[in-house]
């Protein structure tokens, strides 16, 4: 059906950039996102009446993209508060929530962004422990930092960014525990693009002025709940120390949020932005445009456009960032106590994994072990389960696409208008 819209899942940088390119080519586009406002994780918008804490560079990037979206008028429809339930073998897509419908789009662009990697540790399931991105989302929407003592731990540049934002909002973190030693390679760091260096220098200056200790080469080994607070046991190069705090934000990098998401032979499906390759905001914008233009050319029978050079530049920059933060943290997985929860959804532990015997098959992991079978679809355990089960196999073997793509209430399913009746399946 040539009048059916192209469906874009995700109203962040990549999704909206793709939508703009499709609309410019004359194609109607429907953009669905489960959040209430566009922006994705990076450009999460403040609540009405709240000032934005985004940097001028970030604000310009978002305003420019939104102007491009608005310039396309009715060719782009935004459906917020609308979740993607999945696509079946006939190309029928289920959306639930505010824009609930069962219909057949002309094509699909999946731009569901990144997920945070968070390495399991004893106590990582306690209330008050969340991902760094989760805490940052609240800073962006509220323009205020939470009360109490906050500890940031794990590895990656987001910890420095979040620490600097907390400091700017007047409540700096107690410390930043960074497994790598990103500040110990100043010569190598000079290979980063100027925008990265400027951003990093700003964060470090703000953290320095606020007196935030950065414990490099250190690991948050375990978290305990004690007297209404959280006690963090930290392995530093000088030995173990403990910090008592109220909240802990964890982060061990980002990865594509493509777990459990489908391909479908009945219609073209493309991935865009962090969902295709987790390279951050700069690449997501360029890749969204490139994938949108590529899909438009394919649908209209035109020659494929050249690949976006910006994505290759960002790939090189992100690889260097990863090298600067390199650490041996992954080897700590093998040393986790047996009662450490790996699968948060179903409370499956290291011991449960070991009970499956040496070199368990995917089937044993999933059906006997119940790993990556919970409602998060393995987003937060598949990587660690795969590494623990088969340390020499780098590629996770879990997280195959499933229908539905997320938990859906039967009441929602029944209430969804079915627009596929009479369509050729």
């Amino acid at each position, binding site marked *: 059906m040539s009048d059916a819209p192209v469906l874009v899942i995700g109203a962040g940088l990549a999704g909206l950039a793709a939508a703009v390119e499709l609309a410019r080519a004359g194609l109607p586009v429907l953009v669905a996102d*489960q*959040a*209430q*406002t566009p922006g994705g*994780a990076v450009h999460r918008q403040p*609540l*009405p*009446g*709240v000032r934005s804490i985004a940097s001028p560079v970030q604000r310009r990037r978002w305003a420019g993209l939104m102007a491009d979206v608005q310039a396309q008028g009715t060719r782009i429809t935004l459906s917020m*508060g609308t*979740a993607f339930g999945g696509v079946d073998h006939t190309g029928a897509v289920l959306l639930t929530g505010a824009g609930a419908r069962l219909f057949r789009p002309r094509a699909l662009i999946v731009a569901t962004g990144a*997920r*945070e990697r968070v390495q399991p540790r004893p106590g990582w*399931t*306690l*209330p*008050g*422990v*969340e*991902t760094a*991105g*989760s*805490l940052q*989302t*609240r800073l962006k*929407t*509220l323009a205020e930092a*939470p009360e109490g003592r906050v500890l940031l731990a794990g590895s990656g540049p987001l910890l420095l960014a979040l620490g600097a934002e907390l400091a700017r909002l007047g409540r700096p973190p107690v410390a930043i525990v960074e497994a790598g030693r990103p500040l110990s390679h100043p010569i190598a760091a000079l290979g980063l693009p100027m925008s990265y260096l400027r951003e990093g220098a700003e964060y470090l200056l703000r953290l320095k002025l606020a007196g935030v200790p950065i414990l490099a080469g250190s690991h948050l080994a375990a978290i305990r709940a004690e007297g209404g607070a959280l006690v963090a046991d930290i392995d530093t190069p000088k030995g173990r120390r403990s910090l008592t705090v109220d909240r802990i934000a964890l982060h061990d990098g980002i990865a594509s*949020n493509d777990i459990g998401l489908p391909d479908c032979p009945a219609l073209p499906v493309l991935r865009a932005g962090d969902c295709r390759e987790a390279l951050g905001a700069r690449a997501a914008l360029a890749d969204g445009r490139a994938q949108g233009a590529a899909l438009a050319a394919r649908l209209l029978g035109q020659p494929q456009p050249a690949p976006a050079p910006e994505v290759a530049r960002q790939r090189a920059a992100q690889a260097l960032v990863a090298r600067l933060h390199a650490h041996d943290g992954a080897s700590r997985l093998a040393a986790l106590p047996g009662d450490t*929860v790996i699968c*948060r*959804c*179903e*409370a499956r532990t290291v011991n449960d994994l070991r009970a499956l015997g040496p070199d368990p098959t995917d089937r044993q992991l999933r059906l006997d072990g119940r790993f990556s079978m*919970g*409602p*998060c679809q393995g*987003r*937060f355990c598949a990587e660690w389960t795969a590494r623990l089960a088969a340390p020499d196999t780098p590629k996770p073997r879990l997280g195959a696409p499933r229908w539905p793509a997320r*938990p859906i*209430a*039967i*009441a929602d399913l029944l209430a969804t208008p079915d627009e596929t009746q009479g369509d050729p399946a």
Partner: protein
Amino acid sequence: MSGHILWQDRAIAFRAGESVASALLRAGVIAFGQAPTGQARAVFCGIGQCQNCLVQVDGRLAEACLTPCRTGMHILPETGACDV
């Protein structure tokens, strides 16, 4: 539109456009109850990927981080037996 939601029997103020999770956390409510597995319900990913913050919203199971507050909304911990 700001207003109040009910967490169990306690009135919690929310700001216009705020999620249930955000309003509860600002009010000092960090633990949202217990899953049938015994795991604590609480905010973890904050963006609707992990399902760790499930609560009952007016009797239906929903992610606190994705649910916008509406005045009078009644939030309860998950019991493991609600929803359809």
